[in-house]
């Protein structure tokens, strides 16, 4: 066994696994948020990280204003949902018939716009970065079977499991869920049957906004100094994970998000502390290998010809 592989295996202790599962859960949630909108709009929303960032700033400002934590979290959800719906109404809807390239470039523009708006708001006090202390208590660790687990890891895993289960129920048991699945497969035929495009797209965007709120809370616990670049790196990694998993189906995209988060956690645990600078190189080498071997996606069914995107 090569030295690197031995290091990875040696790093697979319970602590590393728990941290990797926690990271994978957050990335899986972000993948769902991105995948839901892609399913109905064919739009890769690069600005998703900036929606998360807006939620994180909300937590920071409400924390500094001494708002109760529950109110700060509720406002964070309000901001991520409202911003998502606003982007859909003002940007995505007018571009609905545009080519995917135009839509992708537009989301880049929106991402940079929001980042610069955040910068303008942030530098008001002559420093960049706003601390969010209200949710910091979730950083405390509890010992479970001899393993130190941060409370936020438990929150991330439970939130991801609960949200994914609720989403699965919604998609399979409700009228709007059925319409979303149909629209994601063949939007034109769904509309011909009377499925309202604006309702289905609006609902998918709303769900992705709620998920952005959850991600904002979890990431703010892990990175308590909120800056304009907040969640940008995570979004890039998750987008790569979504493509690696298979963007054509929501469940493969979600697994892709989880897989890249888990792999990042494990490799991070395996690398010596002075070598963590090589983490992105190691992760992206793995990504290139996967795409060479399974270009349709790591979790895409073999030989599948038709697709179900939600």
């Amino acid at each position, binding site marked *: 066994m090569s030295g690197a592989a031995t290091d990875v295996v040696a790093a697979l202790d319970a602590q590393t696994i728990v941290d990797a599962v926690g990271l994978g859960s957050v990335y899986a949630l972000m993948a769902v948020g991105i995948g839901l909108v892609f399913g109905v709009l064919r739009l890769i929303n690069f600005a998703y990280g900036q929606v998360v960032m807006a939620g994180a700033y909300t937590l920071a400002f409400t924390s500094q204003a001494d708002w109760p934590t529950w109110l700060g979290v509720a406002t964070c959800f309000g901001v991520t949902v409202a911003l998502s719906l606003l982007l859909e109404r003002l940007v995505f809807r007018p571009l609905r018939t545009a080519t995917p390239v135009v839509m992708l470039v537009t989301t880049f523009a929106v991402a940079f716009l929001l980042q610069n708006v955040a910068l303008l708001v942030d530098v008001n006090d002559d420093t960049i970065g706003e601390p969010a202390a209200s949710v910091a208590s979730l950083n405390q660790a509890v010992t479970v079977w001899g393993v130190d687990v941060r409370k936020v890891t438990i929150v991330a895993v439970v939130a991801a499991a609960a949200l994914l289960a609720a989403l699965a129920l919604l998609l399979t048991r409700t009228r709007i869920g059925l319409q979303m699945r149909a629209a994601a*497969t063949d939007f*034109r035929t769904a509309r*011909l*049957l*009377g499925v*309202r*495009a604006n309702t289905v797209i609006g609902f998918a965007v709303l769900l992705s906004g709620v998920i952005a709120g959850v991600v904002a809370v979890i990431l703010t616990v892990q990175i308590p100094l909120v800056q304009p670049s907040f969640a940008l790196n995570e979004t890039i990694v998750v987008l790569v994970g979504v493509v690696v998993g298979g963007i054509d189906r929501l469940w493969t995209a979600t697994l892709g998000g989880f897989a890249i988060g888990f792999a990042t956690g494990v490799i991070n645990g395996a690398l010596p502390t002075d070598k963590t600078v090589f983490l992105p190189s190691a992760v992206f080498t793995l990504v290139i290998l996967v795409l060479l071997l399974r270009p349709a996606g790591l979790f895409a069914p073999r030989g599948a010809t038709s697709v179900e995107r939600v």
Partner: protein
Amino acid sequence: MAPEPMLELRDVGVRYGPVSVVRRLSLEVAKGEIVGLIGPNGAGKSTTLHAIMGLVPPHEGDIRLGGRSMRGASPENVARAGIALVPEGRRIFSQLTVEENLRLGLAGRRDRAGSEEAVESVAELFPVVREFRRRPAGALSGGQQQQLAIARALVAGPDVLLLDEPSLGLAPRMVDVVFEVLGEIRRRGISVLLVEQRAQRTVAFADRTYLMANGEQRLTLTPADASDTERMVAAYLS
């Protein structure tokens, strides 16, 4: 005064870019009437149905449902106004179950009340739908999928049903089944506009049939004309 037609097209023209695909087409479908639309490939039959459903905007003329103009309406609003389309190639959702496909048709209902009764009533008309309810729709045969596509359109409770080549690619026995179903739909008082390649059978079956060629209406035929093949061939080749 004659009753208002259920569906009326007045001087409708459709263009794809500079190419005129449908030219000043006028036709009417009365309540409970089956009207055929036949013609060679590229005559503009499917485009006519797409224009009615709001998929392509007509550049001239008007489309009315029960006297109300449908011009500029989105496909979902046309469906919710009471026009259902059984598209060419069936377009069923193969990864959803038969029942889920059927329930999607409920999106076009103007009133949610009576949805369950509509599903049951349609399942009665199509035993295959009841029998394979929980099966993925993609596992059905072509004929069964066509029945499902018609059933899905009917649960919306439409005033007008548009069918785009429902017998395409089906075995002769299944074609008979489709025409039997159309007979039952006629008995239920639903207006039907039927686009078909089986010219003779359509002319014999429909109350009235329009023959289109090169985007224009060339002939209006009645069931009595079904045996006049020379006239039809001449119109096809004109």
